[in-house]
């Protein structure tokens, strides 16, 4: 029985097609997952369904009601509730009040009778309170009923958001990245809560998340979006092994041989590190996004930070460059302690941060943008080297930066960085929103950086390309570094990395080593993976191993090889 029907939905923002004829069906009682890499259009689709974004063409039906252009509060009346990725609780109210608002916003109550405290309002009030208590009880939030919502830790606030959505007596709950900012254990707990909620409140759910472990654990069916198109759909187990999906998440598998990439000479390795980060922790508001980050970059080295979205890569860069204040730990740059120093002071020392979205001024011409470097550096800088490196920019020197293509804009950002004579350039999501061919060109430029002796710290979604160009890499997971090593090794062990993205059943590798059947397993990997795999998968593996009468590890490794071959 189809409850939510999305047909041929198209959304354009300016010239960009965010959604291209996407269709989706959600059945009653189902928990539907919607996944995809960054910029795939998940959030756009979600916002169309919840009414924040209006589609250009296409239709959305909820039962027999058209939701396509219905106002936001009207959707609530029909029984569509949602939660927010960036917690939107009413922070100055108590948890209980947070639940009562949606309850009586839907019942018709009169402002004036409320102000006068007429008996009718009093009865309605008490009824709402009782229902709020009941919901809080189910979600194990009783003791917070009278707490001011804004004072709660983020993990609890997420649960309150869910409770508030349920207070509307919805039939469909839209969950926007409910696992964002939660650690592995909290994510596991959330999965249990979601199952309990479905059983108890008879709601269907649409879940958008980057955290594959959650999606795999709770969803009955998964849709995968990529570049605004529906890439694949199926049951979680099928999706997990779908080579198209793996490629979308990790980038195209590189066809280059591993030997081709030259790494920094070993002599350099013994040099003192240029950047040394130890035990760094940072976050926003009540959220601690990263903790215990240790990483080093040596002079002239290219280091990649990879990992799923929300793992803390961007936050790490921001904490290093002084855009946000670290909460703990130390950042040493070129032998000086720069922890908590201001961004502009750090950049003067030769650490340039190219933020996500490139941080350019759209209304300046290319030439002016580059000339600006000389002003900030306090001396006149010859901008011709930039044009030598990027001949294309010379042709467009008088064009406004905002009118350039994404790839060209990234070139301007890189050119600007190189003009300020940096010792280390940190690039956040260089390839975001760019076509693969452009991405390849840009990665060539990273090599140029290395040839010039400039160290590079890259944050990348496209693992393959990043590992191609990098000397070493750190794999981020849930706010810490889960794995690190030379890029060559990580690349050859593709499934390790895949595990960190897709929550693949690599964990069985842990079982394998436990059984001592001789398969070499990296202990660091075991650790990552053991928290990642759903109990169900684990049980299935063990069962299969038992029937086939061989160690579980062997089964797993065989399965993984199959995945790899596909």
């Amino acid at each position, binding site marked *: 029985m189809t409850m939510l029907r999305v047909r041929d939905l198209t959304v354009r923002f300016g010239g960009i097609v965010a959604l291209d004829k996407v269709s989706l069906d959600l059945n009653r009682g189902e928990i539907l997952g919607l996944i995809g890499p960054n910029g795939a259009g998940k959030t756009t689709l979600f916002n169309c369904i919840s009414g924040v974004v209006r589609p250009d063409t296409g239709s959305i039906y909820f039962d027999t009601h058209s939701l396509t252009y219905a106002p936001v*509060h009207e959707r609530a009346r029909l029984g569509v509730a949602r939660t927010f990725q960036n917690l939107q609780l009413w922070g100055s109210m108590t948890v209980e009040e947070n639940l009562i*608002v949606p309850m009586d916003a839907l019942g018709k*109550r009169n402002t004036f009778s*409320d102000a006068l405290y007429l008996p009718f309002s009093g009865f309605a009030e008490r009824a709402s309170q009782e229902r709020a208590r009941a919901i809080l009880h189910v979600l194990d939030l009783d003791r917070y009923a009278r707490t001011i919502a804004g004072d709660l830790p983020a993990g609890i606030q997420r649960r309150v958001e869910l409770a508030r959505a349920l*207070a509307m007596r919805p039939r469909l709950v839209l969950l926007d990245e409910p696992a964002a900012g939660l650690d592995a254990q909290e994510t596991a707990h959330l999965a249990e809560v979601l199952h309990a909620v479905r059983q108890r409140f008879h709601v269907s759910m649409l879940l958008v998340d980057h955290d594959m472990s959650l999606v795999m654990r709770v969803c009955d069916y998964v849709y995968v979006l990529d570049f605004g198109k529906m890439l694949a759909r199926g049951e979680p187990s099928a999706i997990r092994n779908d080579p198209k999906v793996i490629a979308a998440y990790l980038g195209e598998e590189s066809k280059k041989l591993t030997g081709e990439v030259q790494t920094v000479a070993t002599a350099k390795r013994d040099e003192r590190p240029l950047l040394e980060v130890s035990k760094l922790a940072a976050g926003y508001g009540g959220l601690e996004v990263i903790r215990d980050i240790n990483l080093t970059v040596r002079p002239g080295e290219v280091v990649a930070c990879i990992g799923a979205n929300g793992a803390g890569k961007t936050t790490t860069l921001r904490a290093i460059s002084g855009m946000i204040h670290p909460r703990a730990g130390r950042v040493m740059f070129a032998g000086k302690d720069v922890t908590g120093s201001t961004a502009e002071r750090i950049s003067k020392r030769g650490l340039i941060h190219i933020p996500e979205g490139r941080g350019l001024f759209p209304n300046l011409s290319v030439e002016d943008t580059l000339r600006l470097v000389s002003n900030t550096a306090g001396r006149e800088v010859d901008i011709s080297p930039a044009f030598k490196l990027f001949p294309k920019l010379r042709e467009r020197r008088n064009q406004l930066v905002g009118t350039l293509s994404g790839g060209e804009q990234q070139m301007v950002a890189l050119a600007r960085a190189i003009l300020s004579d940096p010792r280390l350039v940190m690039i956040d999501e260089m390839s975001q929103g760019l076509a693969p061919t452009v991405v390849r060109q840009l990665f060539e430029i990273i090599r140029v950086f290395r040839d010039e002796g400039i160290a590079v710290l890259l944050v990348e979604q496209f693992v393959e390309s990043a590992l191609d160009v990098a000397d070493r890499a750190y794999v981020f997971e849930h706010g810490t570094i889960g794995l690190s090593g030379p890029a060559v090794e990580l690349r050859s062990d593709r499934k390790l990395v895949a595990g960190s993205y897709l929550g693949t059943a690599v964990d069985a590798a842990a079982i394998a080593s436990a059984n001592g059947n001789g398969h070499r397993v990296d202990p660091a990997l075991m650790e990552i993976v053991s928290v990642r795999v759903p109990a169900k998968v684990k049980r299935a593996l063990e069962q299969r191993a038992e029937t086939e009468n061989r160690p579980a590890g062997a089964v797993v490794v065989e399965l993984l090889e199959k995945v790899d071959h596909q």
Partner: protein
Amino acid sequence: MTSRLMFRVLGALVAFTVLARIPVGFDVGFKFDAALAVIWAFGLLSLVLLTGYVGQISLCQATFAGVGAYTAGMMVSSLHVDYLVAVIAGVVVAFALGVIVGLPALRLRGITLAIVTLGIALVFDRYIFQDHAFEWFTGGTAGWRVGQATMFGVRMDSSAHLMAAYLVLLALFCLVALLLVNLHESGAGRRFRAIRDSELAAATMGVNLTRYKLLAFGMSAAIAGMGGAFYPLVAGSVSPQPFWLFTSLQFAAIAVLMGVRYVPAAALGGAFMAFVPDVLTRYGHGTFMGHAYEISYDWFQIAVGVLLIVQLITLPDGVWGDLRSRVHHAWSAVGAVGGRKVKVA
């Protein structure tokens, strides 16, 4: 719940009786200040609702009060109605204007909304209150003179019966203040606060933003207009000067200074706005150590600015808000020592 309500009603009654006694025995000048204080307190109360509860910014509250004042003045002077009818008319017109001003607020927020409301205040100040085209509404340059007015058959006008007007004003203020405190805790109040904390979440949880924002602007304008409607009665005439742009800005500044989320802060601010300038002009001149000095009204404006800066640093929740929470702390400490919990509304 009901005990809380009783507590509030009691509080309002006590406030009324105490405040009603205060101007007795003072000269007419101070009696006028007292009545003016309540009028300004209405203006500040309108901001408690609009900014404190709903989180909308408005820099044209004095315009709403002015519209109430002119409507009431016109009704009494040219139509010779009972003053009660004039007040009701003033409130209704202000409510309507509030809803109209609320329309841009459906799309705008923050600084843009502030600019738009500032523009509205400017337009009314320059082109309606002071323009010949609207003489039928403003009574021309001389304004409306309200020599004689009756309410409930009782004479109340500026010179002789100022106390009667003051009492009616004060009673109305206590009533509206009580309703606003009730509203804060009620369902509608929660929906208002939900809009303040997160509009997006409020809309997705079924709160009709259009309806509640317009309602908030309308109610707020009506409250300001109610105070303004008494102005002709208290001052004897209406002129554009009390309702010019600067008064609107002063409303905003003093509301923040006193605590924009608290109803009693409005009373405090009203008294501050009415008495301090008068006291300054009355006693602010003389000789000090051989030097003649004179503190004029300008000093009041400077003082407000300085106080606002000091308050934002030391008492971020406003004078009333922070004192209140300090008393709460002290009180609960006392309660803990005494072994019993006392609840303060």
